[in-house]
């Protein structure tokens, strides 16, 4: 767990837009179980995410946290229970899957930009072909988001010409171009050089400030403290503990959580 960091972005968070809805549910997971062949990776997961929530999922490696968020856009299939995203239940019906994927953005640990396309093409491909947006409009939107992640000058370059931090910011912009309702982050800073973690966290914080519903698997405990409204701790495929960040860090209840926190926070 050498990539655990407690770096914080030194600025005060503007919380005026960060409102958690009391009635609208973004993601609801009910009694969900998943197996890899005979291995029970996710056990009895129950999770209700309201619109506008910012959830950080923490836990040791192999605890199933990535698998959990990958189930939310069905990159992984669950075998038991229900997952309802934006009111659509995920089943083997491919149309529903695509419907959910259109509304759920995902940022990967290894960026997964398309290396044979320019940054601009990376950003406009899905809006043009999935949403049917005209090319000029899609490019204008893409430029807007590139400016937001502060790299508009890289639009015509290829991903291989960018630094890791820049690539991850492009990946975030690529998801935002689809105008998603929910963003999933799967260890977005784990593959970055230490110097570049901050620029990516900064973008994620500004997203949170705009009220985006976010589920982040991350080891950035500083980010969790500053931005999350709920921290979920997982171990061995189960949700062990969840709480508000302040209480979670200062007063963990479960033995496993205490051990985990004692090892990552010095």
């Amino acid at each position: 767990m050498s990539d655990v960091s407690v770096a914080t972005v030194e600025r005060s968070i503007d919380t005026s837009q960060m409102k958690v809805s009391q009635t609208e549910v973004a993601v609801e997971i009910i009694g969900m179980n998943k197996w890899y062949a005979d291995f029970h990776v996710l056990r009895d997961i129950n999770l209700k995410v309201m619109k506008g929530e910012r959830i950080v999922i923490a836990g040791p490696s192999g605890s199933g946290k990535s698998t959990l968020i990958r189930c939310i856009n069905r990159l992984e299939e669950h075998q038991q229970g229900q997952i309802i995203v934006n009111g659509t239940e995920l089943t083997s019906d491919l149309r529903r899957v695509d419907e959910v994927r259109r509304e759920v953005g995902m940022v990967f640990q290894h960026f997964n930009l398309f290396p044979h396309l320019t940054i601009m093409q990376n950003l406009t491909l899905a809006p043009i072909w999935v949403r049917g947006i005209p090319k000029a409009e899609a490019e204008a939107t893409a430029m807007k988001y590139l400016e937001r992640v502060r790299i508009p000058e890289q639009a015509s370059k290829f991903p291989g010409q960018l630094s890791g931090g820049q690539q991850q910011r492009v990946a975030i912009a690529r998801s935002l171009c689809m105008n998603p309702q929910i963003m999933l982050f799967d260890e977005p800073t784990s593959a970055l050089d230490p110097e570049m973690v901050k620029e990516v966290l900064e973008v994620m914080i500004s997203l949170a400030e705009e009220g985006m519903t976010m589920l982040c698997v991350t080891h950035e405990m500083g980010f969790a403290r500053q931005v999350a409204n709920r921290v979920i701790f997982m171990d061995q495929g189960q949700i062990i503990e969840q709480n508000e960040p302040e209480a979670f860090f200062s007063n963990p209840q479960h033995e496993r959580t205490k051990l985990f926190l004692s090892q990552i926070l010095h």
Partner: protein
Amino acid sequence: MTDMAFVRSEIAPAKPAPVRTSGLVVWARKNLFASVGDTVLTLLAVLFLIWVIPPLLNFLVFRAVPPGGTVEQCRVENVGACWAYIASEIEFFIYGFYPMAEYWRPNTVFALFALLLVPLLWPRVPFKLANALLFFIPFPIIAVILLAGGTFGLRYVPTEQWGGLLVTLIISVVGICCALPLGILLALGRQSKLPIVKTLCICFIELVRSVPLITVLFMASIMLPLFMPQGTTVDKLVRALVGVTLFSSAYMAEVVRGGMQAVGRGQYEAAAALGLGYWRRMGFIILPQALKHVIPGIVGTFISLFKDTSLVYIVGMKDLLEAVKTKNDAIEWAAPTQAVTGYIFAAAVFWAFCFSISRYSRYWENRLNTGHKR
């Protein structure tokens, strides 16, 4: 200040190198005579060339009968290659039994082919889409109308009369143009999650790859009519085309599958997470990367397809090699080196085409490599 500390006070000037690091002598010493072993190998290679090249030159050039020579010149003792024979029969080698009065028709097709293909292969020429559409839709239709005739007042020329390089090129171009898309579809099918599609593709690929092309051609020519309704016949050339295309597509499928496996799982996932459907994921994200990885394999399949066209003599087509073989027995040019010259000519033609394909693919590999890397 301790002894460890050091600060440079003046910049060291650049000096000329003490020994020469360039030039012919240096190059030769480094590459040809670096050690005793190298020197021995170099000398052996030079001796080999001295042994091989002069007789070869004598045969091909100095003692050869140039085009325009007579058969008597080719019959003298110790004669070299009989190029006069090639020159006098060149039309048969190119057109086979195609009626002489109608040579303008294949010639027009050749010209159109070159006119459409060269700009298509040359990246800097604009209008690629229109160019490709012209090449793949109207051109084949025009080519069939021109070559076969029977309409627009053109005399009907049955495919039995087509031959030589014309047939070799038709089979290989059609084979190449059809085998790649078919191979891609088979590769996608083999990776598919649909069990029936997947099983069918695996069965086809494994079945075709495990029999020789000759068997496929035999089957196409003998078994295909059995499946057709009574009374319908399938043209010999079409049978050969189908056989060669299906055979190559099975190999192509495996090459493409290799390329798809080289594309990281993250690419599939990122494309899926954006909501792109299956065909768009494959068409925009996976295949462009996969095909780039396996250009050498694809071109290798093209080249073997080109050479395998010489097997269509099995179903009675007179391709270039078969045309040469036929004329090698011609009494009017009977001479000691007639057959050898014929085969050298056929080999040279095959080599010229295959080498061009190979060089062109190298060009593309280099181009794509510099495209999006630092």
